[in-house]
């Protein structure tokens, strides 16, 4: 039996039996430290002899560049943007993630369909519809949801790079200024993520500790997922 399955109707022309690798997702709101931990996990896994592909959102060869422009130009409507993101994701899934899994890689992805769904819901798309659209996605081996309360998130973002226009949902005119808008927008995203925990089987990882503490927590969990057979370590 194939190790992998699709959420819904699936991709045409893909033989799931050929997929050997592992698909591991890091999810969470902006500023929670996902990319830091992807970098650390990659290094650690490679040190132990695993081939790793790390990938993130909006980088597809097909649509990545234009999608970025569309986002900045904000001339496209909510449903159009949702589908533009879905196109971009499908291109990465078919051309990066699936070939890597076929070759036996561990794929670490910075965000997956859950962020896309949460952002689209906040911008007015129907949750049921989004789940059906993303039915072509592969079910990951594990989804680590890096979770931070809104107060900690605000502190973290202020300490690093400050409020970003998009991470503050300013395109939706949610508040008087970046701070107000950030809090409202991220709270809403958090609520949408929290709703997905059970249905999608997220593993909640408390992201409020130090980088070392959070990484250790993640490392133990990743170890379980890949079931290391003693090679390397």
């Amino acid at each position, binding site marked *: 039996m194939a190790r992998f399955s699709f959420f819904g109707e699936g991709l*045409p*022309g893909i033989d799931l039996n050929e997929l050997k690798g592992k698909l591991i997702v890091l999810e969470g709101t902006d500023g929670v430290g996902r990319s830091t931990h992807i970098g650390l996990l990659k290094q650690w896994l490679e040190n132990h002899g695993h081939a790793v592909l790390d990938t993130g959102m909006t980088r597809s060869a097909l649509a990545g560049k234009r999608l970025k422009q569309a986002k900045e130009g904000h001339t496209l409507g909510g449903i159009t943007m949702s589908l533009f993101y879905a196109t971009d994701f499908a291109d990465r899934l078919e051309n990066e993630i699936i070939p890597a899994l076929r070759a036996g890689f561990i794929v670490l992805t910075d965000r997956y369909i859950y962020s896309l769904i949460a952002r689209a819901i906040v911008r007015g798309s129907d949750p049921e519809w989004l789940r059906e659209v993303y039915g072509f996605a592969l079910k990951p081996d594990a989804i680590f949801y890096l979770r931070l309360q809104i107060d900690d998130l605000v502190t973290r973002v202020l300490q690093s790079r400050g409020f970003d226009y998009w991470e503050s949902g300013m395109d939706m005119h949610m508040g008087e200024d970046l701070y107000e808008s950030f809090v409202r927008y991220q709270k809403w995203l958090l609520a949408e993520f929290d709703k997905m925990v059970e249905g999608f089987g997220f593993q909640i990882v408390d992201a409020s500790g130090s980088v070392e503490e959070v990484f250790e927590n993640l490392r133990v969990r990743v170890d379980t997922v890949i079931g290391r057979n003693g090679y390397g370590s």
Partner: protein
Amino acid sequence: MAVGMKMYGKHRFPGRLFIVEGIDGSGKTTQLMLLQKWLEAEGYVVYFSEWNSSPLVHEVTKRGKKKKMLTSMTFSLIHATDFADRTEHHIIPPLKAGAVVLADRYIYTAFARDVARGVSPKWVRDLYAFAVKPTVAFYFRTPLDVAMKRILGGRDALKYYEAGMDLGLSDDIEESFGLFQSRIIEEYEKMVDEFGLVAIDATRSIEEQQAEVRRIVYEALAGTKKTRIRRWLDLASLAKGSRA
């Protein structure tokens, strides 16, 4: 904020939406153009929804096709993105304003084409759930050989995706086109009952088809907004008795 997405069949607008479907060479574009002339002459506010969506989406589609980067899935999704833009900018606003909106091809083209490419019929129908249900959807039913005679020879070389070359049905582009179109016809035929498409026999004369189309559209127009001013040119065409 989140006003909730309206789904197929649930939209309520004062305008009307008439769309035409059929394979290439079915004559649907000619019929839609003739319908447009008549509606304008009758004084309706007519809006022709062209496939001129956002340049950004269009560019991705064009590049993807040119470089043959598209799979069945991304082909389907990028066209859905394009259609969403058209819905949000060129279909819903004029319908809200009470216009008679005309569209050459609609979601049924995507259903036929994507399913012919191996995409799940259920998935693609769910994908387009945001579309506005047309007031009337005309399907110009044409036997494959008739359509092929009309287009082959009369136009430039067939294009790669249009001929379904990505499916590897045949190395010969004309043969591939024929095989792909026959799959599309099969899908259209299934949709006649499923979506209540109004099938028009496209082997009849242009005039006969147009008379039938106008009769059906006329019945669906009761209560639709008209402009007060008629252009003299339209009056002239009325004088010739263009009303079916």
